[in-house]
């Protein structure tokens, strides 16, 4: 589903012409397929802290070709900048500038991952340098080319660089699963989580519910969760049941035709999952609608239906989940937010309010799930190539899809990969977070 | 009356020749007048060793809605015997004009079943010349035996009317009986008879009487349109009675208004049972659903 333009400029004559004209040259992104190595090429681990040593040891254990010092002219798969011991802005220069020349050697679709500490609760100087990593990484990501991305892992106090969620996040960022995630941070809030026994089946034995799964991103989520080993219950409104059935049959799951805004939706989801599959471990709130209109022309119908489906339904279902005895064993909730909810979008006041609401809801719900070892996070997609965005007029679509560091739109599978990661046991230490899957869109945070 | 031995014909008379002869005889009569004498021929005719054609039998069975079994439908035997009966009416000493005769009534006794494999001896004779309020009527009696056998398996009495022919020595019938008022019941079936219903039955029965074949041929004989064969209608009614009638039965039909083609025909079949719910009789009546005029009625009863 790579767009025609990207295919055209990625090889041969098209590439040369685009280069001469100074046109954007989006790369064909490396995307995950089962059995694929985490990353090809050596991984340079830069940094001198105990965390850096431990992390390098862990990467060796994953059978990666680890370098603690750069070998000139050697093509690198990834650079991991371990910055977990910085105490003042002055500490930043040494590791960063040491690693800098190696950026030239970064292979196409390579990775830069920073590992740093959270600034909250730190001394002013420590906070300054830690927050400084934020600006550094986001800028660096914009300098990377050829499908390479830069992302960061932020460790809370008392969370080591080799805690399960940190390793989970590192492996996610290194792999093709994070192809369209760029310039983003995930915060590891706790040591909770567990790495999977089989890296290709991180969701083995899990029962997952995906709402809005009849098509687009929802269907991709169902496929990805199924690929990762989960038994999937796909949910969508009854009128989308035919597409839903196709998805269910494809992912060997079960279809539940249900309007998530019904009062009893949560109970029916629990009943179906538990009744048919014995338990319920993962709920992905993907169902969402848009009813765009400038606020000046907004009416009750457009407003209330968007709020009702996109956030009120999620809140109601979460309440049922939290009250249920069947959602107690390290449960996962992942909500689909939107970059509109972060950066805003003209004509989408209702939609952005609902998606901003999702982000707020996720933050506030995280502590409630922590007691039972659970987590809740949101994924905010940017421009994703779907049936919905295919209806945007050509010129607008072309602009929208190039307005990010990767100069292309993402695929539904890219969103699904982020969700699958957040739904995995490994991500247990990540909760209340919003992960953007936007190729580092120029708008928004 | 005519109790003598029948004349044995060497082969089955050809109906088309009989019709041609009849036309010639009619012309002769117009010129020379009716033959003297008002008596019926004293002899009957017989054809021996008649064998039903199985292909024709199947086509007949399918046309009238019978299952294509090996047993000859009672109406099919009527069609087999018809040329023999016609040949009697075609005799020079037959007192009435054959063409234009109207089939009033038909009674068949199917005493035991006849299979298509059995060669048949068919006799026919004319009987009971008598007056009718609008002419002269007589019965054509046909009997069918399995060749060499004694027992009559099938016996048919067809009553024909020579309309407007009054023979000397036969008293005029008393004042006409007013036909009872007929009110059509709810139908149990409605047949949709196409314009080709006459041709289709002619093809399986061999009865190519022009009044049944087409509008043109019927008009040539003074009809406004072609009409359905009476025995086709009666045979369909018999078929509709179904398996309840068993192997031996009495089947009668009285014809009233002809069915001009094409036409829908309303039909009502009702079953009369004994107290023990055994089949006793099926009565049928057919009419024109538009005008409500009765076409024919009859019954099939256990023998």
């Amino acid at each position, binding site marked *: 589903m790579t767009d025609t333009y990207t295919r055209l400029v990625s090889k041969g004559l098209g590439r040369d012409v685009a280069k001469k004209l100074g046109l954007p040259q989006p790369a064909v992104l490396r995307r995950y397929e089962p059995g694929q190595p985490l990353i090809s090429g050596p991984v340079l681990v830069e940094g001198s802290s105990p965390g850096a040593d431990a992390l390098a040891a862990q990467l060796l254990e994953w059978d990666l070709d680890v370098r603690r010092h750069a070998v000139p002219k050697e093509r690198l798969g990834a650079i991991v900048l371990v910055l977990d011991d910085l105490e003042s802005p002055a500490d930043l220069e040494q590791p960063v500038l040491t690693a800098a020349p190696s950026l030239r050697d970064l292979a196409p679709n390579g990775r830069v991952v920073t590992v740093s500490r959270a600034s909250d609760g730190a001394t002013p100087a420590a906070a300054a340098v830690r927050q400084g990593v934020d600006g550094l990484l986001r800028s660096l990501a914009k300098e990377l080319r050829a499908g390479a991305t830069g992302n960061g892992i932020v460790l809370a106090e008392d969370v080591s660089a080799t805690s399960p969620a940190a390793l989970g996040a590192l492996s996610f960022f290194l792999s093709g699963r994070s192809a369209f995630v760029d310039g983003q941070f995930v915060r590891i809030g706790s040591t909770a989580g567990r790495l999977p026994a089989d890296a290709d089946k991180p969701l083995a034995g899990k029962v997952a519910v995906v709402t809005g799964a009849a098509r687009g991103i929802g269907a991709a989520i169902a496929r990805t969760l199924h690929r990762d080993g989960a038994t999937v219950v796909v949910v969508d409104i009854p009128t989308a049941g035919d597409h839903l059935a196709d998805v269910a049959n494809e992912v060997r799951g079960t279809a539940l*035709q249900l309007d998530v805004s019904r009062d009893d939706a949560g109970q029916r989801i629990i009943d179906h999952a538990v009744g048919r599959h014995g338990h319920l471990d993962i709920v992905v709130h993907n169902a969402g609608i848009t009813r765009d209109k400038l606020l000046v022309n907004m009416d009750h119908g457009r407003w209330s239906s968007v709020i009702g489906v996109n956030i009120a339904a999620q809140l109601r279902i979460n309440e049922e989940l939290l009250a249920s005895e069947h959602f107690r064993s390290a449960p996962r909730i992942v909500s689909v937010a939107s970059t509109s909810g972060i950066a805003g979008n003209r004509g989408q006041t209702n939609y952005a309010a609902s998606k901003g609401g999702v982000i707020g809801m996720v933050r506030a719900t995280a502590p409630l799930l922590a007691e039972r070892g659970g987590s809740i996070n949101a994924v905010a997609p940017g421009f994703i190539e779907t049936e919905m965005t295919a209806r945007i007029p050509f010129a607008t679509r072309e602009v929208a899809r190039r307005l990010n560091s990767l100069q292309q739109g993402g695929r539904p599978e890219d969103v699904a990969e982020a969700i699958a990661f957040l739904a995995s046991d490994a991500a247990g230490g990540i909760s209340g977070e919003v992960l953007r899957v936007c190729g580092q869109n120029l708008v928004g945070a | 009356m005519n109790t003598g031995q029948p004349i044995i014909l060497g082969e089955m008379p050809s109906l088309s020749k009989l019709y041609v002869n009849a036309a010639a005889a009619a012309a002769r009569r117009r010129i020379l007048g009716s033959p003297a004498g008002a008596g019926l021929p004293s002899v009957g005719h017989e054809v021996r060793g008649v064998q039903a054609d199985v292909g024709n039998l199947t086509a007949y069975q399918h046309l009238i809605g019978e299952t294509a079994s090996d047993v000859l439908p009672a109406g099919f035997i009527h069609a087999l015997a018809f040329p023999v009966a016609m040949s009697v009416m075609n005799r020079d000493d037959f007192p009435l004009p054959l063409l234009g005769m109207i089939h009033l009534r038909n009674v068949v006794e199917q005493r035991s079943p006849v299979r298509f494999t059995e060669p048949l001896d068919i006799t026919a004779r004319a009987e009971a010349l008598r007056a009718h309020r609008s002419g002269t009527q007589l019965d054509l009696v046909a009997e069918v035996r399995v060749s060499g056998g004694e027992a009559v398996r099938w016996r048919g009495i067809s009553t024909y009317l020579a309309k407007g022919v009054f023979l000397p020595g036969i008293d005029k019938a008393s004042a006409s009986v007013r036909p009872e008022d007929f009110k059509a019941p709810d139908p149990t079936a409605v047949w949709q008879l196409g314009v080709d219903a006459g041709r289709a039955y002619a093809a399986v029965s061999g009865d190519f009487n022009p009044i049944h074949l087409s509008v043109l041929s019927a008009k040539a004989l003074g009809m406004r349109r072609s009409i359905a064969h009476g025995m086709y209608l009666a045979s369909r009614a018999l078929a509709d009675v179904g398996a309840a009638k068993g192997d031996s039965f009495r089947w009668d039909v009285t014809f009233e208004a002809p069915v001009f083609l094409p036409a829908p025909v309303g039909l009502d079949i009702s079953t009369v049972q004994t107290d023990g719910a055994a089949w006793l009789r099926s009565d049928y009546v057919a009419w024109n659903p538009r005008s409500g005029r009765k076409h024919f009625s009859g019954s099939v009863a256990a023998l």
Partner: protein
Amino acid sequence: MSVDGQSVTGPEETTNVRAAGSPQSLREAQSLREAQALRKAVVVGGNRIPFARTGGAYTKSSNQDMLTAALDGLIARFGLQDERIGEVAAGAVLKHSRDFNLTREAVLGSALSAETPAYDLQQACATGLETVLGLGNKIRLGQIQSAIAGGVDSASDAPIAVSEGLREVLLDLNRAKALPQRLQILARLRPKDLAPDAPNTGEPRTGLSMGEHQALTTAQWKITRQAQDELAYNSHRNLAAAYEAGFFDDLLTPYRGLSRDSNLRADTTLEKLASLKPVFGRNLGSEATMTAGNSTPLTDGASTVLLASEEWADQHGLPKLATVLDGEAAAVDFVHGKDGLLMAPAFAVPRLLARNGLTLDDIDFFEIHEAFAGTVLSTLAAWEDEEFGRTRLGLDGAFGKVDRARLNVNGSSLAAGHPFAATGGRIVASLAKMLHAKGTVDGRPALGLISVCAAGGQGVVALLEAH
């Protein structure tokens, strides 16, 4: 329980058992004992596609397309992908000769295991219900553990036959060996032979359409226009309410852009229904009362029902909505006017209930297929008729009265439409869901009765019990 009932149905069945002593009767006694250990056949659930008026959304869809879609929806609902189901049986009333193996072909095109056997069945409009009863019996006997029953019909994509004349010529041509023979055969062709022969719903033995037949029965039982219109109105109202309540959310999968039955007129009124002109029975002596509003239209659609033994359902974590208790078929002699074409259920239901020691008062839900409003009302009238009860049913008086508040409470064929063979599956799945929701009544499981009339003067009825 029906086993007990069957053992007392007549002296013929019991004499064999009484003649004890011979090895044969011992074997029979043994098999009778084994038969008493019959299992339960339960309805797990169902799936159908919305029913579409002919010439509408499914115009270009074949029976196989629609049956496959209904199957795939069922598979998705119950997670049956790659499952080897014991047997699948379905059928269609209007069937192309190329669809000689319709159900098996649909299975092969579905997400079920390709090792799932299937057969076609046809009993006119009772096809769907008969597949449920037949497969249910196989489950009860332990021959299979799971089954999918179903039916499909398309009046849009109905087979068109060549004329009899052309057909005979073509067949003879095929048999002919030499060219001159072939030319001779071809010379038999007449222009009219080239006109195709479209199927009609007329009864072969009477030439009357089903509507004309029902018009006779409707008149015979003196069913008024108003009563028929009211029944039609209730059907639409009940079906619309069921959709609003989400009743069909887990009974139906959209198809070809339809997510509701296209015949449903949620906004119809008695006035609108009363304004329609009669279409059947216009040549009868009495007033014509049957309109397009109180008769079912030609419809396209498909339905499926998942049946299983209790063990299979449990092993698969699937619901057990209702038990298929018993079924009965009847037929009437409509050819000779003894009974109306669609009156067979009037005889089948009394026999079924008597065998099970039940009366109409014991039934919590009546699902009487609305071929025509007149069909339902004539049946109810016959049951309430003293003379009919005495002379035709052999009872002391009238058979009984159906509580109208329990009749077709979620709508029926007048509103949903009636794709002949698909109607049985629609009813069984809906009734099973209703019974399951009702649970128990006065301490006993809720009971539901299904009655489906069929061409050829037939009727199939069934008894379901909440599980």
